[in-house]
């Protein structure tokens, strides 16, 4: 068997590909792109929520939110680690993020403008991410699958904390309910855009499905998210901002209106409300930390030399 045949055989039999195994160049490149994009999303995703951690309205809300953001840092870290097994260093991935060569989920380029947005982000954004991540636990690349298993286990509380915030507001004073509805209005469409372009327009999905990197299509994942989320909104008396949303008895799913793809592509290309701000923040933190990393490296080197000499 050739290397390629062995590889295809493993994929066909659902045997995971491991770092030292031979893999097609495009498979490696696709994974590097997808996994680093996923890692960057976790890291940049800390910012819109970090925007409210200092202003959380109760002590309980404060610790929950901080723990959640911290988990996201951890998840970014697991994903960078997994992505590093493909022969590219974290430094390189970070450089690609900061120079705009690598993307991250466009949802994080929307601003968080009220406390209710912490609810919307947890409920909708994490909700959408979880639908995707649950499916990725079976992805064909071993390190990616393993990090997804760990992430899904840890994320189980994230969506619930968001829904709890929204539910509290929806049942609160008229002002609070208005806040919740406003957050839903602003985050609904960007959340369903998170699943990416329609399958017919997605030029990248094809190989990824064949290689079992992706196991379900963008549209299938999006539909499953919408079907799950609509009743959750109804339960709270909130209205999904889509006049075309309607239960389709025949399909056993909700029909929904047309997504504004012009907005989607603009945000992807860097024209969203917060794209520049998010990257600037990341670059600044990285630059401020430079002297610290240099000092720690220098100290570690000195210690190693001392140890060697003794």
């Amino acid at each position, binding site marked *: 068997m050739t290397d390629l045949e062995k590889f295809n055989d493993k994929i066909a039999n659902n045997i995971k590909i*491991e770092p*030292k*195994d*031979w893999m097609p160049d495009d498979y490696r490149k696709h994974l590097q792109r997808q996994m680093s994009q996923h890692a960057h999303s976790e890291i940049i995703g800390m910012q819109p929520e970090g925007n409210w951690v200092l202003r959380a309205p109760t002590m309980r809300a404060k610790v929950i939110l901080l723990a959640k953001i*911290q*988990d996201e840092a*951890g998840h970014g*870290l*697991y994903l960078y*680690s997994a992505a*590093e097994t493909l022969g590219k*260093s*974290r*430094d390189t991935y970070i450089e690609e993020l900061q120079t705009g060569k690598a993307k991250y989920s466009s949802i994080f380029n929307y601003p968080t403008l009220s406390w209710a947005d912490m609810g919307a982000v947890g409920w909708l954004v994490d909700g959408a991410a979880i639908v995707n991540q649950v499916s990725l636990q079976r992805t064909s690349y071993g390190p990616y699958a393993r*990090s997804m298993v*760990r992430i899904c286990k*840890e994320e189980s509380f994230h969506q619930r904390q968001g829904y709890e915030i929204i539910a509290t507001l929806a049942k609160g004073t008229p002002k609070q309910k208005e806040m919740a509805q406003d957050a839903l209005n602003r985050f609904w469409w960007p959340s369903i855009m998170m699943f990416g372009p329609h399958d017919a327009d997605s030029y990248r999905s094809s190989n990824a499905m064949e290689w079992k990197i992706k196991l379900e299509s963008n549209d299938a994942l999006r539909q499953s998210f919408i079907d799950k989320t609509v009743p959750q909104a109804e339960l709270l008396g909130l209205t999904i901002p889509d006049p075309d949303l309607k239960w389709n008895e025949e399909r056993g799913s909700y029909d929904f209106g047309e997504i504004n793809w012009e907005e989607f592509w603009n945000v992807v290309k860097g024209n969203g409300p917060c794209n520049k701000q998010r990257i600037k923040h990341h670059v600044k933190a990285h630059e401020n930390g*430079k002297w610290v*990393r*240099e000092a*720690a*490296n*220098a*100290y*570690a*080197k000195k*210690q*190693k030399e001392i140890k060697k000499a003794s």
Partner: protein
Amino acid sequence: MDNQGEIWEVFIQSKPGLAHKHVGNLHAMGEEMALQNARDLYTRRKEGTCIWVVRHADIFSSNPEDSGSFFDPSDDKIYRQATHYVMPEGAKHI
């Protein structure tokens, strides 16, 4: 020298009496930092009683090419499995 430090592999014993299990890796400058980072990253949910950190560069691994010569020879040594042996009916505690 600006980088994220070396890669360290992390092994955690979740309960006394159990083996240390590989949980993932991280970056750190020096062993003390690696140990603390492992504690902060991998035991956020009460997951451990002991942590080992090992420089990734110090791990010497077999390669997929070796797998035939390393692991297949044990395929025909089924006599190493307890289930290989036929016990007389009624034999207990064996």
